[in-house]
């Protein structure tokens, strides 16, 4: 693992499903400690892009380098990367047959080979951080959506990753629960975590992002610091998108 390499370096990334080109030539570098927010209309390829970063999707061509390691389809590099990259999904994807605590200790024990006591201590620390330590013995289905998503964040953090990916973490939540999840994400950002977030929460982007990226039809159309991105978007498509998202 290279201590000096950028967190993520993507060059010339292509990906298609059958005849549909989901990504056509993405170039993106994310520095360590940088917070990047990715937005764009649905079907623009933003989810596909971040799913390529931890290889939930195999890319067709181009290179992806995470923490200096090239993702070339070898299983060894894959295991290494997934250990260092945490991910939070739109649908939470907590394991329904395990308690909250078991969800959080599973990967540290299996992948990082931590002893149970240590894994549980870590898990409780992160559950406190997302403010639900009292739910540790419950099953996911007994929690509200917002609580589940906070557990999902804690579960990813328990692996002590260097990079966190968020794939529309608030899109499946009822409006009143969005704030509690965003609060946790803001805290995380303030502590210096490298983050790539696909989200439409523009307030969040303004508050924490170092850079906002707009994607459409599989390409990065515009990338700029939030101040510039929101006040003076360069591209027509960006302007149109912003007017739709912020319009009302």
């Amino acid at each position, binding site marked *: 693992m290279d201590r000096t390499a950028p967190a993520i370096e993507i060059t010339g990334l292509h990906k298609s499903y059958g005849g549909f080109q989901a990504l056509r030539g993405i170039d993106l570098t994310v520095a360590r400690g940088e917070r990047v927010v990715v937005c764009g209309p649905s079907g623009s390829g933003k989810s596909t892009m971040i799913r390529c970063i*931890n290889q*939930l999707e195999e890319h067709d061509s181009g290179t992806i380098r995470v923490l200096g390691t090239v993702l070339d389809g070898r299983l060894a590099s894959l*295991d290494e990367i*997934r*250990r260092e*990259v*945490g*991910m939070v*999904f739109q*649908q939470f*994807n*907590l*394991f*329904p*047959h395990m308690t909250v605590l078991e969800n959080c200790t*599973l*990967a540290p024990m*299996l*992948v990082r080979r931590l002893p*149970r006591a240590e894994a549980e201590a870590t898990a409780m620390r992160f559950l406190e951080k997302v403010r639900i330590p009292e739910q540790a*013995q419950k*099953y*996911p*289905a*007994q929690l509200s959506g917002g609580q589940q998503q906070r557990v*999902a964040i804690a*579960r*990813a953090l328990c*692996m002590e990753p260097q990079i966190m*990916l968020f794939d529309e973490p608030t899109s499946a939540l009822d409006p009143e629960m969005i704030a509690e999840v965003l609060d946790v994400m803001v805290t995380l950002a303030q502590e210096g975590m490298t983050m790539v977030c696909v989200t439409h929460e523009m307030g969040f982007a303004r508050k924490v992002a170092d850079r906002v990226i707009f994607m459409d039809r599989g390409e990065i159309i515009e990338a700029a610091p939030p101040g510039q991105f929101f006040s003076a978007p360069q591209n027509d498509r960006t302007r149109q998108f912003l007017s739709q998202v912020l319009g009302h």
Partner: protein
Amino acid sequence: MARLLSFPGTRRQRELALQAVFLSALAALVLGAALTARERLAAQGLTSGFGFLRKATGWEINFALLPTTTADPYWWYLLSGLVNTLFMGAVGLSGAFALGLLVGLMRSGRNPAARLLGTLYVELFRNLPIILQLFFWYAVATALPNPRQSIEIGGALVNARGIYLPGPEIGRGIAALSALAILAGAGLAVGILAARRFRRAAPLRRQSLAALSLAAGFAVAAGLALAFRDPATPWITHPRAEGLRITGGWRIQPEFYALALTIITYGAAYVGEIVRGGLKAVPRGQIEAAAALGLTAWQRFSRVTMPLAFRAMLPMLANQSVWLMKATTLGIAVGFSDFFMVVAGSINHSGQTLELIGILMAGFLAINLTLAALMNRLDRALSLEGSSMRPRR
């Protein structure tokens, strides 16, 4: 409404009348049948009742785990048949589940060669009547060479009279008791793993307790076998052909293994489809989340996919188990003395038809209810509290 049945009075009265008519017709039917039966039986000189159960049978059954002789009474024969059925069920179910799991995995995987093999297997075994398959295997088994020309495979002898395996020299009763001890140990282990009480306990403690009970089962079995061993005989005897006779070793009769093979291969085709359905029911997101956490393929499969798939397929597996237990009755077609065949034989010899049919029904009801209760318990123990993955009824 009144167009349908021109019955005077309120709807409630009409409903009551309808039920009364139906129930009395039903009662009349049953009563009529009972009266006719009594008359017929009296004409044949038979007395109804369960007294015959204590009479000696005077005929033989050709497969028995419990020691039986012609001097044994009917109740012992029936019990023996029930034990045979349960044993066949245990062998058939565990074999069908194991093979079915393999077939299901082959059909669900990405490997085209494995998928083709799995598909061929399922389509072949599922689309032929089970009794045809049984006749086929039995014909193959009994068409093997006669004992003089036995085929030898690594110390075992195979011929038309059965498969003879090298085995420890212990009596049949002790062997049955030992098997029971192992079964009890395994049952207890499963119970401990599934029990609610132990759920909150650390998995490590649960697992070691389960392992302990399993080990205890084997220990008791080994102890029994050792304690009741005839010290004059060698530890393990090998089957030897002496002309047409084979001495030593353990004989597996063609009736037994043909039926076991049939139930296993036929059942596996169905279990394979259930496994495939269960694997399909696991949401993709679950597997992706496990991958994102860095779990390896095997860890993803064993910790996330399989536990969830198993919960999804449990109700269907329960149905399939009941079905396979019922399939043991096919034993009568080749002469394996299962419960049903013993009942049928008893009817032939004693003429106590109604009583024996009653016993048959009670026996299968008991087996089914026990299986259903076990599966329900497992289902409850594994159920996902408040989860919507599978609606609970």
